[in-house]
């Protein structure tokens, strides 16, 4: 796993973005950017600068699941690894995220250990 990879953190609450950025920094990833919903995230992703997307689900404007669908439909972005970090906990929603092609799903409230485990698992699978 490349610790210098560029990560985009998308959440409508700035405090949650800060928490995730701090946890990522603790895990050795300090190359992070932020966006506050899918509408602002998508153009950033389309620049092609990002190696990993961490997104919330419930956001005004474009939601996380819609962002995921846009990413998977985009020829240049479709293989971008996506981790969903969200309070959405309905089974239907988790199944929908899986069908839309999410790489990992973390329910809030979460711990640093869970975040670490899921990120490692995603990249283990990609690297293997």
């Amino acid at each position, binding site marked *: 796993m490349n610790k210098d990879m560029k990560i985009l953190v998308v959440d409508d609450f700035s*405090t949650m973005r800060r928490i995730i950025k701090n946890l990522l920094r603790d895990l050795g990833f300090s190359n992070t950017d932020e966006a506050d919903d899918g509408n602002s995230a998508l153009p950033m992703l389309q620049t092609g600068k990002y190696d990993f997307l961490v997104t919330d689900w*419930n956001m005004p404007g474009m939601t996380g699941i819609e962002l995921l669908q846009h990413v998977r439909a985009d020829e240049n972005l479709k293989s971008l690894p996506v981790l969903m970090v969200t*309070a*959405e906990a*309905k*089974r239907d929603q988790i199944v929908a995220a*899986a069908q839309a092609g999410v790489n990992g*799903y973390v329910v*809030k409230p979460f711990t640093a250990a869970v975040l670490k485990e899921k990120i490692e698992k995603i990249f283990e699978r990609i690297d293997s």
Partner: protein
Amino acid sequence: MTNESSDKTQLKGFEEKLKDQASQLKDLVDSGDLSGALSIISELDKSRDQTLFEEIGRLTRTLHEAIQNFRVGSDELDLDNSEINDASDRLAYVVEMTNKAANKTLDLVEDTMPYAAKIKLEAKQMAKEWGRLQRKEMTPEEFRDLSVSMADFLGKLSNDSEKVHANLSDILLAQDFQDLTGQVINRVMSLVKEVEDNLVDLVRMAGKVDQMTGITHDLEKENDITKGEGPQMNADARKDVVSSQDDVDDLLSSLGF
């Protein structure tokens, strides 16, 4: 509701009358007495109308009472100063307080972490040097350097740990929002409960009018999962909601993840 028992008896009376007259109507039609049958029909119609008027009258009174219970002047709708508006302001205050507390805590944590990291790194280095000294692997020259850097380290450690302690105390204090926001939320919850009770009364009255007029409503619940619902309450008691990260992992692995 004080009127409830009389409402029930009235509705019941109408139902009984309806049953009774329906069988009479059938008998009359069967025996070929059409004019008798028609007069029963018009009688039925009349009594339905009368019950309906009474229900609407009661509904109007209840509506009036409910409006007064909302403490919005019934003559003059003062929406700007309503309790609901006040409740929105209070909740906005909760959002502001929690936002401020979270940011303050994050500021302090971000400020403290480099100190902790530095102390950890330097202590490790010192321990290594100290080990060499104890194993008598040090030249007198190196020992002089060590004693200088040790004095320096201890001085910095004292300052840095003071800073860490001060920041931790500030983090502690930043949690005082819980008390204030808790009080505000409790007040808003009791208002919501009051509003709900009044609305339930209204819905109950409206339901009776629907029953009399035979109106049915199409109450299909909107079910768009892409919208998102936020945190789920009582997740343990619900089958359609996962209650932990383990549940999520189990579900995903059942899908081949």
